[in-house]
């Protein structure tokens, strides 16, 4: 509180800050750091698939045990240490208070604590690469009995450390989640009624709600798995009277909502960008929110679509299959309304808009291919093949990176007070879009041929020889995809220090965060809180003096 009046030291301003904007940036940098490691794991996976048992440049031979560990870490890192920090934590922190006209989060100290838990969790996960026995190697889904007993994998310390790191990450997200929810409810500026709250904030909070009430079972489940590995219990071990499917239920009860925790906020940020660069109001704001609520609720009751052929009672499959496919109804509404928002606009293809449109174009493929898996009978064939690998990269990658780059490029001026380079941004988009599709599109066809996922050595399957050429092209394209990210990293760090200074509201956006200075000052607003008078998307209103009406004059 006294921060506003007292000068801040470097430490309290940048390191142990409780300012939500700084914490948001800290999460962003943490996520970017992990993205580099995630990319390295992706490279090793791709190398081994295309050139099995030959030394990967820069690493050496990837043996089977290492492959499984790298694969497990790849999934864990990308989902919990890249997507969650960037999409959920960084932007919830940075955006929610700015968009609703608060000075900070409801609980700034808890917020800072949430970041430091994530740092601790990161240190533990990183260190698990180097313990004897190596990192956890039972897949990011960690199914027991495989994960529960070292004798099955040879992994000793890796599994408990993996669980501990995840537990800390969940604690971090829970602290953050309490904050996001409480902030939206209690910290809105005068006049900021719920129907004036921008969609990005709504979607971020909706994602958090999905996280918040689904993570509990996995916490309980993780404690049980930890006891199975360390205390000799047998919750999941049939030999000791336990039940292996119990873990799968607990994991997916969380795991399915979790993928929406990532996807929903990304779509929210895309919705923030569409109106600005087409100079049009969001079409059907309230209908979007209603569909969002339905999808977020449905997310809780579809988890067993990951378990159709797990050996659970086959009679349960049909209800879950029907509910799963039903999700396409609210999602289709959200898609149609995004299209309606574009219709009749003045579409300007600036870099954030390119990412937003790219998100829609690519995620559509991921969403539609979900139907093949949601129908239990066709999932008999596709389950655990590369078709699924392609499906979830076509959903997670657009959410994490198309959504992430859309958000970073759009809010960069507000975060750092400077502009990114537009030409580099366009190249980065074009290359990433092409190369991403180049990596994962062919994998649908490879999956349809029956190639199983999580195999360390495709050369053992003679019939996979027909794909040797495809696989090595895919790997080359994946390496290029990773290299293309250097354009972004250079652009980001050079612009951070030397970019063109940005004005307050460079894109003429209506939402609150653009009405304060760039970068937003400590405390966000001057002496007076903004008085909100307009909705978030009043663009091109006939008779208005300019083509947008800011939510408040600051």
């Amino acid at each position, binding site marked *: 509180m006294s921060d506003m009046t007292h000068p801040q030291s470097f430490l309290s301003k940048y390191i142990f800050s409780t300012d939500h904007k700084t914490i948001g940036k800290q999460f962003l940098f943490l996520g970017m750091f992990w993205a580099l490691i995630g990319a390295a794991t992706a490279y090793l996976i791709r190398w081994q698939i295309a050139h099995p048992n030959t030394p990967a440049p820069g690493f050496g031979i990837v043996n089977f045990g290492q492959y499984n560990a790298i694969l497990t870490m790849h999934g864990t890192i990308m989902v919990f240490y890249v997507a969650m920090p960037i999409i959920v934590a960084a932007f919830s922190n940075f955006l929610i208070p700015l968009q609703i006209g608060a000075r900070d989060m409801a609980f700034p100290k808890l917020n800072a604590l949430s970041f430091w838990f994530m740092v601790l969790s990161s240190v533990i996960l990183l260190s698990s690469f180097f313990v004897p026995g190596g990192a956890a190697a039972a897949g990011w889904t960690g199914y027991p009995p495989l994960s529960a007993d070292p004798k099955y994998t040879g992994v000793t310390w890796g599994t408990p450390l993996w669980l501990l790191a995840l537990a800390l990450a969940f604690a971090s997200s829970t602290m953050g989640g309490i904050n996001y*929810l409480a902030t939206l409810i*209690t*910290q809105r500026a005068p006049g900021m009624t719920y129907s004036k709250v921008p969609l990005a904030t709504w979607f971020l909070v909706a994602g958090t709600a999905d996280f918040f*009430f*689904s993570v*509990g079972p996995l916490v*309980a489940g993780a404690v*049980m798995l930890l006891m199975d590995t360390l205390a*000799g219990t*047998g919750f999941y071990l049939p030999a000791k009277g336990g039940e292996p499917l119990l873990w799968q239920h607990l994991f997916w009860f969380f795991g399915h909502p979790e993928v929406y925790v990532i996807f929903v906020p990304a779509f929210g940020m895309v919705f923030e960008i569409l109106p600005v660069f087409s100079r049009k109001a969001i079409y059907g704001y309230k209908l979007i929110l209603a569909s969002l609520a339905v999808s977020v609720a449905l997310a809780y009751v579809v988890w067993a679509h990951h378990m159709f052929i797990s050996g659970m009672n086959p009679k349960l499959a049909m209800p879950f299959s029907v509910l799963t496919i039903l999700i396409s109804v609210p999602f289709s509404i959200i898609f149609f309304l995004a299209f309606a928002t574009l219709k009749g606009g003045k579409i300007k293809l600036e870099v954030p808009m390119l990412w937003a449109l790219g998100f829609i174009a690519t995620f559509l493929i991921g969403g539609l291919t979900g139907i093949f898996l949601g129908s239990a009978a066709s999932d008999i064939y596709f389950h655990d093949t590369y078709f699924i690998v392609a499906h979830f990269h076509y959903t997670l990658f657009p959410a994490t990176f198309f959504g992430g780059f859309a958000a970073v490029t759009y809010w960069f001026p507000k975060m750092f007070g400077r502009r990114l380079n537009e030409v580099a941004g366009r190249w980065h988009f074009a290359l990433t879009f092409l190369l991403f599709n180049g990596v994962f599109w062919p994998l649908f066809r490879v999956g349809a041929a029956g190639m199983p996922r999580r195999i360390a050595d495709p050369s053992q399957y003679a019939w996979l020889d027909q794909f040797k050429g495809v696989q090595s092209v895919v790997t080359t394209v994946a390496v290029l995809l990773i290299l293309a990210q250097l354009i972004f990293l250079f652009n980001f760090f050079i612009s951070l220090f030397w970019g063109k200074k940005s004005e307050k509201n460079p894109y003429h956006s209506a939402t609150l965060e653009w009405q304060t200075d760039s970068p937003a000052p400590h405390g966000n607003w001057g002496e007076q809180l903004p008085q909100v008078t307009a909705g978030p998307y009043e663009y091109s209103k006939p008779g208005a003096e300019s083509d947008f009406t800011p939510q408040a004059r600051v």
Partner: protein
Amino acid sequence: MSSNNQVLSGSHPGEAGRLAMWFLIGSEIVIFGAAVVSYLLLRLNRPEWVVDMARLNANAGMLNTLVLLTSSFSMALAHAAAEDRDQAKVAKRLGLTLLLAAIFLCVKGWEYSAKFHHGIFPSTNVFWSFYFLMTGLHALHVVIGMIAITVLWVRASRGTLAPNLNRVELTGLYWHLVDIVWIFLFPMLYLS
């Protein structure tokens, strides 16, 4: 700067705190709920667990139920005293709550050690795994609650709790959760 202080620390500090506590309680209920549902699902196919259940000391469990219920009551009284802004009374009633919580833990500890003496450990079979998992998690929550109550109790007895009296209510909410969880665990483990 007073107007700014007001907004910086949240426009309705009490409300935000209460909300946060309810969210926390919600997420705790999901954790315990998952453990309970897992237990019940396994229990359905394992009639042989009755034998193990019979080895639990239902009297000790009953005693602990009463102890915890009483502590919930004294916690509610402490909240009432906090509403009256009477710190001395708050301190007394929190002290009573702490004492009862300590009794609960002693009984629990005695039960555990009796089990260990008879060679019963979490790894004995899945029933005992669940027993130790759920009562252990619950005991952990008792300890966390006791830490929070101790902090309030020290401050209240020194008479320095005045600006934070609303924390008695929040801690009380949490403490009732701890109580309610036990009220589910007791019949499920000891009686069914």
